[in-house]
């Protein structure tokens, strides 16, 4: 294993120390329990938004803390959900009296830890709403699984809800908006190589040199099926078709298209993917009205990408365009 790290067990702490030093003007990094919070929190009368999850997905979530997006993020250990005391401490730190929205990705660990934290916060009299994101079409929803994973739609929900909260919309509306984003978004990913978890020291997924894994999540867990490596054209066709058919998206839909790198893929290739996606959607009469191309929700050093489509209306487009000032996303301000 070659990585720019010291002791594997210290990676998260060492990185948080780096974040604190690099962005101390705008962020406060608390340790034990770990959370990253806007330096100007709490904001009186503004709904606060807290998210979090395992580390290894950067810039998600810490990189999205700032004006127009998250008020706080709770980084867990690598690929491991944060603990309830982290989420509780972050919730207390950002509550400005208008309530707190917890944005939770649908993984068993995240759901249970955030649920325990929400219970504890409510016991303290903080008004809390939780919304669970589950946009991954690689998995069938149903009683016989833990349900669909939360992937790319999380970034979009954090941005859009953050903008709504900045406009002082009340908690119930911000939570409803979050559910609307989740309901209108679908994603799927493909891995070209595995990631390597520092504490494990070897690749999680055994992929041959000419194999790719379709329908992967963001933790190196096996996906839906293994296939021979293929051209960007064919890979995008497979991903986009699964996504479009699932919602389904149809002729005349305006969408936000999010091409996300999984950590080990150059931006150059992500634009190749975007080009293919644009062509394919155009042929189906789907209009890309907004886009985001880059590595925003990663799986450590995994090569590959995910595609997320979100059906837009004027409200969502306007909130997407609203100013945002974070280390991960920044425009309009």
């Amino acid at each position, binding site marked *: 294993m070659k990585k720019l790290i010291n002791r594997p067990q210290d990676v998260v702490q060492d990185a948080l120390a780096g974040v604190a030093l690099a962005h101390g003007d705008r962020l406060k990094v608390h340790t034990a329990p770990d959370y990253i919070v806007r330096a100007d929190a709490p904001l009186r009368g503004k709904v606060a938004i807290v998210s979090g999850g395992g580390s290894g997905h950067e810039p998600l979530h810490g990189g999205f803390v700032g004006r127009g997006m998250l008020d706080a993020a709770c980084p867990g250990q690598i690929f491991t959900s944060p603990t*309830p*005391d982290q989420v509780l401490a972050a919730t207390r730190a950002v509550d400005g009296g208008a309530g707190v929205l917890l944005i939770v990705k649908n993984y068993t660990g995240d759901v249970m830890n955030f649920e325990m934290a929400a219970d504890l916060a409510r016991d303290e009299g903080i008004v809390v709403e939780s919304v669970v994101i589950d946009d991954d079409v690689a998995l069938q929803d149903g009683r016989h699984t833990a349900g669909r994973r939360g992937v790319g739609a999380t970034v979009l929900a954090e941005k859009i809800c953050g903008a709504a909260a900045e406009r002082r919309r009340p908690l119930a509306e911000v939570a409803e908006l979050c559910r609307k984003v989740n309901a209108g978004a679908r994603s799927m990913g493909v891995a070209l190589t595995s990631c390597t978890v520092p*504490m*494990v020291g070897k690749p999680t997924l055994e992929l041959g040199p000419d194999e790719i894994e379709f329908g992967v999540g963001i933790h190196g867990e096996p996906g839906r099926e293994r296939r021979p490596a293929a051209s960007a054209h064919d890979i995008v066709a497979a991903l986009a078709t699964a996504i479009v058919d699932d919602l389904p998206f149809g002729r005349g839909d305006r969408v936000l298209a999010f091409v996300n790198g999984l950590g080990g893929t150059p931006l150059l290739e992500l634009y190749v993917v975007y080009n293919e996606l644009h062509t394919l959607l155009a042929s189906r009469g789907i209009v890309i009205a907004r886009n985001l191309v880059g590595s925003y929700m990663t799986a450590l050093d995994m090569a590959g990408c995910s595609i997320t489509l979100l059906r837009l209306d004027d409200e969502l487009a306007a909130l997407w365009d609203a100013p945002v000032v974070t280390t991960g996303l920044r425009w309009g301000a």
Partner: protein
Amino acid sequence: MTAADQGTGPGDGSGARREAITRGDVVAWMRAFAAAVARDRDHLTELDAAIGDADHGINMERGMQAVLGRLDALDALGELAGGGVGELLKTVGMTLVSSVGGAAGPLYGTLLLQMGSAAGQASELTLSDWASALAAGVSGAQARGKAELADKTMIDALVPAAEALQAGAASGLSLAEALRQSAAAAQRGMEATVPLVARKGRASYLGERSAGHQDPGATSSWLLLHAAATALPAGLAP
């Protein structure tokens, strides 16, 4: 009793067999579990790499190291021996909740917290009190994760272990023998997860492909109950 000759603990100075569980026994249990988790860390992580995300051994080791640290801190303050069994179980549960993360943190945390609530203020628990406490803890974990038997989770090891312990208590087995049967039931439950298709947790994402692998959480649960069988009957003197 057939097991009487094996039941005398090293800390039991009188040489007579103790049939009650004290705080000292809980400490010995947690130390034995921590040692087992440290020893089998890589195995647990490999099982999780096959059907999950390769962190279960790491999560459990981090949690049990935190528990050991907490026990040592209590010891340094002279607070390890005094007080109720329930309170100590709750301390362990809180420590797990705040250090493990993942699915295992809330589940093992809830197990120990609910065991602690059921154990109450008593400074010693009989086998049947202990069996009821374990059953309460297991129901707590089941309620938290909403898993049913045969969903291929830790519940598949925990439920039969709790049932075997209650059956052992009801039929008048010695503490040592009842704990052994409980651990054996956990082991069978763990082994029975191999052919199952997972319906909860990360492994459920694999569907049919999860069959043929032993569940990592059921494996750590067997370690927990195996540690109880080795440590509790031979626990520290109160």
